[in-house]
């Protein structure tokens, strides 16, 4: 994540030049244009054209579940949650722990191969042999995990290659935008990734631990307090997904309903619990409220504050366009009203109004361009990261296949690739960080390659 402090325009330019230089000087798989490595370009290899007629498999591997499908589909074929299986082999509900010291990589291998086996043979109905795989990765995904995923796919499913694509990019593409502030409220972490003109500004990426896992623990405690029963993992998850909602800031609409009791069933018995305390207060407490004495740890900011601080870390010109392009994705963003409430809070933080006394300190960074214009801050909808990846991959594939088929030959494509600088194709070469593909034979045979290929901070010539 080098050289993007200060003004974004300059840094983008510098970055672009750096990328170009790297493309010229090295023969790594990241350079789709350089002829020596063209055969290993991520999206078209003339030698393996035949294999490329098969659309790749796209996997969105999260801590709590895996979405899988084939490129070109609207929605993933299946969404498999991670949890105890019928054979009693899987005992956890998460694929990995945020603290990698608590995660055994062998265990990740075991679980992943078992679940992917189900996905391939019961849902996708194909064997991985002649397929390339595209993995959607969170910007914060650890290298160990990326390696583990590639390992399982190469070892047990004979995938030809594995390509990683940033998940926020996918979400943004599925929204039809080219600039977005992607807020991914996931299980372990909430990650905010600004993307400007198809380029993720990874130096400004922020994350907080206020995410699904915290919410789960909090709801679990709340339910126990009101029923005296310790709810099971699945019961809590069901409750969060089916019963929780977030109220707008002015409670006039929901004051009436929050008095009602709510019926839930825990381990066979029905309990009536107060609506307000259990169904929306935990959300506010977890995602929106600051710590008592306003001393949240650096990885523990409430989401609205994090959005504001992320924006303040951006250049002036990028900020403005981000404001009307906030995109909420991730499991918890499906909770009704939550995104709206976060948006409201962000507006309250950024926009100075008459009662500006209680706004937070961060506001001063934003004075020049937000006075009185609350409606500028808007959220956009997306079909989800998986669909975005599907769109992009299928479009790119079609484009390349057609281009080659039109008689221009591979030379035309070769010429086209680095030249297709504008728009989406450009992003394919550099900013999307589709890191070239990780190839099976190389990965399994060359240990240095396997260790370093995922670390994109290592200069390409060492990879």
């Amino acid at each position, binding site marked *: 994540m080098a050289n993007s402090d200060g003004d974004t325009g300059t840094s983008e330019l510098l970055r672009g030049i750096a990328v*170009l230089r790297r493309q010229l000087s090295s023969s790594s798989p990241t350079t789709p244009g350089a002829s020596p490595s063209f055969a290993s370009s991520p999206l078209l290899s003339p030698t393996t054209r035949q294999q490329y007629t098969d659309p790749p498999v796209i996997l969105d591997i999260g801590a709590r579940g895996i979405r899988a499908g084939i490129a*070109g589909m609207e*929605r993933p*074929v299946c969404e498999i*949650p991670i949890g*105890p299986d019928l054979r*009693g082999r899987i005992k956890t509900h998460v694929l990995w722990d945020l603290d990698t010291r608590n995660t055994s990589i*062998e265990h990740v291998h*075991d679980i992943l191969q078992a679940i992917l086996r189900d996905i391939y043979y*019961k*849902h*996708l*109905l*194909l*064997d991985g042999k002649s397929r390339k795989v595209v993995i959607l990765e969170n910007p914060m995904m650890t290298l160990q995990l990326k390696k583990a995923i590639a390992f399982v796919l190469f070892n*047990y499913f*004979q995938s030809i290659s594995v390509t990683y694509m940033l998940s926020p990019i996918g979400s943004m*593409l*599925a*929204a039809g*935008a*080219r600039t977005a502030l992607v807020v991914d409220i996931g299980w372990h972490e909430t990650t905010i990734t600004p993307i400007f003109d198809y380029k993720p500004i990874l130096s400004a990426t922020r994350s907080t631990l206020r995410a699904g896992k915290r919410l789960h623990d909090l709801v679990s405690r709340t339910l126990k307090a009101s029923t005296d029963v310790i709810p099971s993992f699945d019961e809590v*998850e*069901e409750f969060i*997904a*089916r*019963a929780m*909602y*977030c*109220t*707008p800031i002015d409670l006039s*609409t*929901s004051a009436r*309903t*929050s008095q009602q*009791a709510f*019926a*839930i069933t825990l381990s066979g018995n029905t309990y009536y619990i107060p609506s307000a305390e259990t169904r929306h207060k935990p959300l506010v407490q977890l995602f929106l409220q600051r710590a008592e004495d306003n001393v949240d740890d650096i990885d523990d900011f409430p989401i609205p504050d994090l959005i504001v601080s992320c924006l303040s870390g951006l250049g002036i010109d990028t900020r403005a366009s981000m404001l009307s*392009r906030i995109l909420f994705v991730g499991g918890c963003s499906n909770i*009704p*009203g939550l995104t*709206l409430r976060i948006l409201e809070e962000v507006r309250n933080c950024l926009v100075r109004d008459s009662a500006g006394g209680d706004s937070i300190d961060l506001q001063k960074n934003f004075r020049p361009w937000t006075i009185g214009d609350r409606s500028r801050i*808007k*959220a*956009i*909808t997306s*079909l989800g990261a998986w*669909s975005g990846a599907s*769109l992009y991959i299928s*479009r790119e594939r079609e*484009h390349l296949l057609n281009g080659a088929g039109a008689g221009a030959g591979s030379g035309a494509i070769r010429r086209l690739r680095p*030249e*297709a*600088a*504008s*728009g*989406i*194709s*450009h*992003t394919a070469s550099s900013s999307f960080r589709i890191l070239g593909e990780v190839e099976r034979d190389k990965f399994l045979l060359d240990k240095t390659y396997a260790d370093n290929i995922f670390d994109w901070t290592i200069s390409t010539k060492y990879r």
Partner: protein
Amino acid sequence: MMATRYPLLRIHCPCAEPITDGQDNEVEAPTTSGSPDTGLDKTANLELPPTIDNPFALHALNSLYFCDVCLVLRCERCVVEEVVQTYCPACLHVYSADTTAAGNEPSRVTRKGRGDDATFCTRNCLQCPLCFTSLTMFATTASEGSEVPATVYLQCSHCSWDSRHTDRSLIFSKHSSLYQQVRKLSAQRAIDDESETHDTPATSFGALSQFYQRLYESVETEEAESDTSAPPSPMFSKRVSRSLETIRFLKSHYSKQGGPLSTPSPAITPSSVLGVLGRAGGVSNQKTREHAEKEKERCVSYIDEEAEIEKVSRMGGMTSLDETPTLSQQRANPFVRPTRSSDMLPLPTRLRTRRAKRCRACRHILVRPDVSSRKVSTSSSASASVAGSTSTVATAFRINLLSKNYIPTLRLTYLPATSPAQSSSPYQAGFIPHITYSFALTLFNPLYEPIKVTLASPPRTPKHGHSITFLTPSFDIGANIEDDWDLQAVTSLRRKFADLKMSGIANISASSESARTGPNLGILDRGRNWTSVIFEIVPANERSSEVEVPLFVSFAYEAEVEKDFGSGGRSGESADDGLFDKEQREVAFWSVLKIGRVIA
């Protein structure tokens, strides 16, 4: 968590230990050395495989295969699978079949052009959205008059979900291709439903797809134009020269800005700056950019805040969890995520696969389904297929190297013993510490050759220290030649154990007396292709610890293999002049006997 049913036999597959490509995943090195007769000595320095307690490495005998080239058991992880056929589990219709023996991917053939439908049965097979059982189709009674076209509704025979009693009161106009009708409905609903905050994926996905296609095209034409206009640069690629040009241009531009206002040179106009900037910064030119901007506005949709608030107030009015579908019900629908329990559509049925399996080490085929589809003419009108006949899935296999045909099958029987505390079987009742329990372990030989078996186990279980004693670590089992071996073995065994149970103490002591002395030391009984041996367990005093016995089974036999005439000198060595050579084979594996729990 399900309770484990004891006794349980699991066979360990060592493939997960430092994963190689299967080549050197042979059985454990320390135990294969030496002749089978030294089994007792081996137990002293028996090394357990490191993954013996990993549940992913333990398999039921039925789920294992045996590679008869490598002579190793193969589990699901050390086979390579190929999909040869997909079929609907409800109507058994075959959707794709690989008739050629080649290993090319067969599912591709029919997947083409089927898009999202490729994994579903596109006929009449639908599932209940609540409990996922197959729905049954019923015709509505023609109460409104006979001229009304035939209409059908669906009902679940398990949870009595009825398509007529949903919010939409679903009644289908045709009794054929229900899948397509449901598909259409789910696409329609998303548009109709006001509470949906955005377009249905179907439409907006299509729109986005189109949008990106146009973007690609515009890029392409732009590139074609710029190619002709740009001057050739031998040293650098075009983009590099462009960025250098940009830097030079900007330098001059800003230096001019700083100085006194001179007459602007014709080159420096806002549009030219933008143009150069755009070229270097990733956008080809302004026109493309504007075009894209315009297009972008068309595709981006904002969150509908009113609808969202309405949704929240609807959620607030809910009084019970039952009003929303469960997570598994929500995930099950591949087209639309249902939001209300009362408004769910029937689910399509997922196809299943028949797969060929190969050994990962030698690529030898272990399983090959018979895919020759049979044409079955359908007489019933219920399955309204396209033609009068349909191909249904076959159940036979051409090759199926199941492990149970290659390695001895193990069976554990409890031998009731002297003290009254032990009279009930310890599988359910649990073990009492410090009491000796006797079990009979019966091994059946599925091979046509007699085998020499060696059993080995550590003297104490690794986790809890229950002590284990095998009286006979090494013994022979006869060949499995006669056809009625099954019946004979089972009836004989049954009689034996029934006797033991009835007469209890006296008999068992007598039989174990005979087992403890003489030439058949430790052998309880033996049949033509089976042998029962006694082993004893003394549980340690560890509350509710599981009694798991790691057991190493190794067996050797002489197999007849086809003579290798290629290597000239060797053929002369064999004693007989037949086509077959005798070859000593040894196969070994680890297994885990889960017998029960210790009660305190």
